[in-house]
């Protein structure tokens, strides 16, 4: 499944050197709306040893919205991209989504299970939420 948002992200990263890739991630991080401190709770955090990630979600007219934040910039940049891709979609659509952009923009190493707090645990958390929401609809 191809989608316009992922393709747009891939286009933006295409041909960039690592320096510019990270620069771009940092600018996405800066654009991401920071999460209110009150929501940065233990329950909302995905724990790991490298950087902290907080995640909360809500359903708005049948579409899921994910609010994500991190204390590290690069992580924040990556989750800003994930949020762009998964937000405002129906739960089933998120469940079916293949986040192919991560591999295409050369951030796959951030997915490795060895990087605790890597994207893998964030994505599985997003899918869990989507699955729960989808089962409530059905």
């Amino acid at each position, binding site marked *: 499944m191809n989608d316009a948002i992922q393709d747009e992200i891939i286009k933006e990263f295409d041909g960039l050197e690592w320096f510019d890739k*990270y620069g771009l991630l*940092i600018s996405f991080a800066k654009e991401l709306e920071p999460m209110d401190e009150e929501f940065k709770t233990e329950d909302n955090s995905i724990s790991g*040893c*490298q*950087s902290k990630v907080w995640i909360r979600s809500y359903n708005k007219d049948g579409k899921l919205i994910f609010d994500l934040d991190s204390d590290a*910039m690069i992580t924040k940049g990556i989750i800003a991209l994930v949020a762009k891709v998964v937000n405002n979609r129906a739960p089933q659509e998120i469940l079916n989504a293949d986040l192919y952009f991560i591999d295409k923009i050369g951030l796959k190493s951030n997915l490795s299970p060895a990087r605790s707090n890597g994207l893998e645990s964030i994505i599985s958390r997003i899918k869990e939420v989507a699955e729960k929401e989808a089962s409530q609809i059905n």
Partner: protein
Amino acid sequence: MTDFAKDFPILAQKVYGKRLVYLDNAATTQKPDSVIDTISEFYRTDYSNIHRGVHYLSEVSSERYEEARKKVSDFIGARNPSEVTFTSGTTGSINQVARSLGSSLRGNEVLVTGVEHHSNIVPWQLAGAKVKAIPMDDDCNLLIDSMEITNKTKLIAIAHVSNVLGSVNEIKEITEIAKDHDIPVLVDAAQSIQHLPLDVKDIDCDFLAFSGHKMYASTGVGVLYTSDRFSDIMPAIGGGGMVDKVSLEKTTYLDPPLRFEAGTPDIAGAISIGAAIDHMQKIGMDKIKKHEHDVHSYARDKLLEMDIVTVYGNTNEMCGAVSFNLDNIHHYDTGLILDKMGVAVRTGHHCAQPLMRFLGVEGTVRASFALYNTKEDVDMLVEGINKVEMMYK
């Protein structure tokens, strides 16, 4: 590249098109040709199981294994090779002591420092002991005068050198006090064995633990020195190769060190430690200490000069690691950029969460040095930090 670095083939490579600057030596050190060749030759010509067979290769293997034990024994100044047990590493060594002393520790206290690696905290807790820390000042100097020994203190277990700060703890002062109270002392030498000349008779400790892989030898093997005074303690792990007579009613054990080495050990690993010791001794531990001290001091000075950098810890003697953070930049973000500059550092809590809490940080960036590092490596680190600052400005 220095003459020292030339012996380490992995260091000749480039990463991301840049010269590799390997500054993650507190996690593990790279291996010199002599160690790699020794392991390979051993499997090619001498390998067999040890202490069991009547055949030629078993004899050769056993001899080489015991020769490695003798080298370790001489290297750390033990009175007798029987005081040297091969283990799986520092963590394995400490757990072995914790399990062996188990009953005496349960419900009692083990005194540690505030800079310990989790592997010198968790085994004591698992053995049922309460872990207490010797206080330290803001620079992480131990306040030995304020050390509280009670009748519940059954062991003092201290890092010789902090894996995070590179601070050298004054272990001799501690063993002297411990002696007055007749309390055994375990020294975690994981971060000192590769940097400083070390003598267990001089330190006067009862146990000393270190890993092969942090001293240029292979992974999965380490050493536990146990003073003869404790040679009658019970083995922590049972199995083959460590028994005298076994019946279903009662088993009697061999004398140390074989008593503590149940099952087939990491034979090639032990022999690699011997080769690593040869390598270090060929250069000379005093020379290694001096060279590393020059590089380490240069790194601290350079980092302290940078406005954006906060360096943690400042003790009389330091070696190995330097930990720091950049103002308002997450350690993980720093590490990622340094990596792309070819500079390998470690970021995070370094398995020392109590110390992180003491410092009031989530984690640090750690640059840690070995004998092959140079001032040029430090310059590359500094250049990397400037790049990091520029990226996140």
